[in-house]
């Protein structure tokens, strides 16, 4: 049961029950839709980016506790970050959840994202944890939308 407690930490259960930044943005110049066809998880990520800084970010969608908590925590972290910082965080997060369960993780570097370290024990759940992040990366690349709306 230790692995389970590691996976469903209190923070994750809390964000699942009360997701932060849930909903659509009124001012939005980057957005993307993420979908995991295997399990039906679905998420929309909305961002307002000005001068390479993520001024605001929200999400909406339906999914399991891991995917919802991951999206919620991601939005709280990204607000105010520069685009390259967001990309770097995605890399660190992705490396952590896909790393070998026996290797050591630099939790300091991950900050709040360290609560997702337990996911690497559950290969079937990696996609749940990373759906929001992949969608956010797609939203960043969504330049066409930026030009239309800006």
């Amino acid at each position, binding site marked *: 049961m230790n692995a389970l407690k590691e996976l*469903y930490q209190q923070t994750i259960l809390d964000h699942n029950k009360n997701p932060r930044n849930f909903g659509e943005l009124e001012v939005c110049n980057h957005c993307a839709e993420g979908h995991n066809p295997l*399990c039906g998880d679905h998420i929309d990520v909305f961002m307002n980016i000005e001068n390479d800084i993520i001024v605001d970010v929200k999400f909406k969608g339906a999914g399991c*506790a891991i995917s919802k908590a991951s999206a919620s925590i991601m939005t709280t972290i990204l607000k105010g970050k520069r685009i390259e910082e967001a990309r770097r965080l995605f890399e660190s997060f992705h490396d952590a959840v896909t790393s070998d369960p026996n290797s050591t993780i630099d939790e300091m570097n991950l900050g709040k994202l360290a609560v997702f370290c337990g996911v690497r024990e559950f290969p079937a759940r990696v996609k749940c944890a990373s759906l929001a992040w992949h969608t956010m990366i797609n939203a960043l690349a969504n330049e066409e939308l930026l030009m239309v709306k800006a």
Partner: protein
Amino acid sequence: MNDYIYDIEAIRADFPVLSRFVHDKKLVYLDNAATTQKPQQVIDAVSNYYTNYNSNIHRGVHKLSQEATVGHERARKIIKNFLNAASEAEIIFTRGTTESINLVASSFGQKFIHENDEILISAMEHHSNIVPWQILCEQKKSKLKVIPINDEGEIIFEEFEKLLNPKVKIVSIVHISNSLGTINPIKKIIDYSHKLGIPVLVDAAQSVQHQKINVRELGCDFLVLSGHKIYGPTGIGVLYGKKELLNSMPPYQGGGDMILSVSFEKTIYNELPYKFEAGTPNIVGAIGMGAAIEYIESIGLENIQNHETQLLTYATKRLLDIPGLKIIGTAAEKSAVISFVLDFVHPHDVGTFLDLEGVAIRTGHHCTEPVMRRFKVPATSRVSFGIYNTAEEIDILAASIENVINLFN
């Protein structure tokens, strides 16, 4: 009723994997609609083939090839008798249910389906009985029509009757739904379709292991099944088809075994069933599937059905006692499959939690996305029972579900 005593311990002892532990808990395998476990008799048949007479079939004059050919064709005969087909010529080996449907869609479709023709399926089909027809419809500019289902997950028969018309060239319907457990009234569907001369394909992937199927009594034109869902190996399945219909259809794939003679000017196709079996087949798969059918027949389909009905009744009662649990699929005629959702816990989280308790279930859309949309759920948790499941396992399942609810509240 017969005097048969269902010796569950003896049956369980035939399945080596059932004695293993998962996350330090005794395995409770409730994912039988996805695939079933294999009894020692099937494992031995597969092992015996590779150990003692592995060889190619239909072409060697040597002893091993003859033994392999006999083993392969014996399996065909077992399946013919199992389904009560008229002859072995009507039993085509395929890779599984999916390939069987693709074969019919491709071959029957090429010959008999034209522009503006209609193909009739139901709203509870597995993706494998939707997509092959969509591909065909795209090629032929024909139309896919869907029989709607009610809130219980049953076909609305009056709607089916309304959809029947001379433009319909085939009705392709699932016997038992893999995600809802609904048992469709296929005999009635076949009879109504035949009144208009429309052939019917029955997807029996989820039914042949639970109840006796007699293709001649049903009168179905095609029936498709998989070996791995009936306690046999993966990668093997069957297409049953009426001989005259199969004879009128063009080959599905070209290659060795499906020909009588080949020249660059003209090739003469082989007779049934070989016309549809190009290339070296899954010899060991067929032999394993034959062994699996002999195994379930030694228990008896009627006894299996009886046992599984008891499991379904008990599990339904236990699960409905859990507050916040809703069963998706409440047809009057149901097989031992229960899909459910919980008020505050997503199926994925249920699946991971149950796995750590040693309980294997399926979570997701079960390859039936239209069913999920019909019931407005993104996914469900599904338990599906087999010959070796017990009431004690249902108790473990119910306790585990209660635990996961507690964790999330």
